[in-house]
């Protein structure tokens, strides 16, 4: 397509939107609603994946020892665990450290109760290793390995937590993607309807263009531009709206809610919108183009 034909298509496409103001507005409106919902789901998906990933890197396996296991044996077990290629990090926590941590967490406002324990350490047999894995996929193997080490009393592996998180992640992914596909189909249908109206409004002009010798591209160009512009505007508006809402939500969640649930930390807007913005814009323009293309192919046989 020549530059002249391209600029004609852009001009006529914009004019057509202006001429069919009501239909164009309705299309933009539905696109905004669809892409807004899509953006919400995508933002949830991106954040949830992030939570799962960070949970994976922070979840540790605790290894406790029998009463009669000597410090030398414990040190050797630590070296053996560290030598495993699946292991990212091994930290030793003595029974005294475990008690100090527990006391500061639960008795910091109750000095009298803490004093009643005297010098006794209720967690006296709680020397442990905190094992962090490179990938949670190896969790089962390592847990089995740790359980079979002589001198190990108990292995606390948060397997069920991880499994639940991963299952929830899968459910959210599948349901979000299904909803996104449905919304996309609805949007294509709506754009297609708008283009049908635009074609019927310009029926006479199209007939004349055909007789004068306009090429296929020349006749179809403005309708494709119209669909793409509606798609672009329909994506830009919800992106702006989502950005504003996300900032508010981010402040609320990261300042207040995450105090109660430390794992619930939202990603920064920059990190979310670097994915969300191009996806929404590409989808908006793509839906607009697809809707127009389907319609002009069906209704504009040159």
């Amino acid at each position, binding site marked *: 397509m020549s530059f*002249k034909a391209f600029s004609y298509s852009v001009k006529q496409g914009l004019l057509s939107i202006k001429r069919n103001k009501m239909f164009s507005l309705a299309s933009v409106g539905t696109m905004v609603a669809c892409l807004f919902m899509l953006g919400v789901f995508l933002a949830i998906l991106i954040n949830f994946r992030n939570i799962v990933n960070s949970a994976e890197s922070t979840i540790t396996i605790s290894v406790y020892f029998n009463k009669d296991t000597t410090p030398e044996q414990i040190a050797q077990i630590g070296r053996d665990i560290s030598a495993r290629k699946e292991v990212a990090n091994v930290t030793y926590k003595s029974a005294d450290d475990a008690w100090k941590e527990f006391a500061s967490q639960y008795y910091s406002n109750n000095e009298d109760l803490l004093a009643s324990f005297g010098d006794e350490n209720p967690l006296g047999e709680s020397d442990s290793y905190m094992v962090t894995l490179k990938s949670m996929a190896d969790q089962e193997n390592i847990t089995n390995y740790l359980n079979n080490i002589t001198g190990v009393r108990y292995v606390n592996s948060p397997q069920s937590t991880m499994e639940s998180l991963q299952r929830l992640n899968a459910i959210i992914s599948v349901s979000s993607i299904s909803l996104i596909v449905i919304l996309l189909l609805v949007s294509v249908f709506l754009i297609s309807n708008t283009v049908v109206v635009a074609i019927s409004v310009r029926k006479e002009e199209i007939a*004349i263009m055909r*007789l*004068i*010798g*306009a090429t*296929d591209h020349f006749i179809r160009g403005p309708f494709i531009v119209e669909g793409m512009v509606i798609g672009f505007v329909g994506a830009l508006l919800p992106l702006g709206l989502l950005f504003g809402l996300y900032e508010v939500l981010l402040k609320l969640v990261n300042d207040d809610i995450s105090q109660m649930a430390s794992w619930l930390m939202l990603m920064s807007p920059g990190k979310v919108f670097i994915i969300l913005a191009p996806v929404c814009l590409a989808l908006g323009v793509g839906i607009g183009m697809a809707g127009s293309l389907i319609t002009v192919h069906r209704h504009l046989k*040159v």
Partner: protein
Amino acid sequence: MVQFNSVSMVYPGGNKALDDIDFRIRKGEFVFIVGASGSGKSTIIKLVLKEISPAKGMVRVMGNDLASVNSKGIPYIRRQIGTVFQDFRLLKDRSVYENIAFAMRVVEASTRDIKIRVPELLSMVGLSNKENCLPQELSGGEQQRVALARALANRPSMILADEPTGNLDPANSMEIMKLLERVNQQGTTVLVVTHDNEIVNQMRKRVITLNRGILISDNEESGYSNEF
């Protein structure tokens, strides 16, 4: 310029519009195709513009066998044919100037060419002072002159006029015919489809007569003396 070889046309439903038609229009000719309603005149126009394809036979336009022209090639054939219709087919939301310029924009003519050509055409059809008018502000005769100017905008080799005087009074009809004659004298082939015998008799040109899809006479050999 236009050649029909044993052309037949049957519309869906079995309605036979043309039956084994043969004729040839040479470059620079002025030809009328006449006949009553349903005689197949409009079918000839549709075949020349390749809006439809014949059931049988061959249609050649400007040397091209239209059966071998694909959908991408059709616009380029149509660009060489200027069409004028009974109902003018002007864009009601655009000025006289814009209606003519539109035909040039469609074939991607430069703005410079449009600025030179449109006033030339308006002057030729005698509407220089009406360039900013909308079509509905003009009389029928004036609207048809705008349509003729638009048909001529891209310097076609042939003008195809389908009942160009159908909506006009005798004076305006004659004026359009005079304009077509002038265009023809400048070398453009003119093919007029009409049932207006008054006009045909006055113009004394070649006349092809159709009746129920059959070519019943062509005065090509007799020096256009036949009366319709």
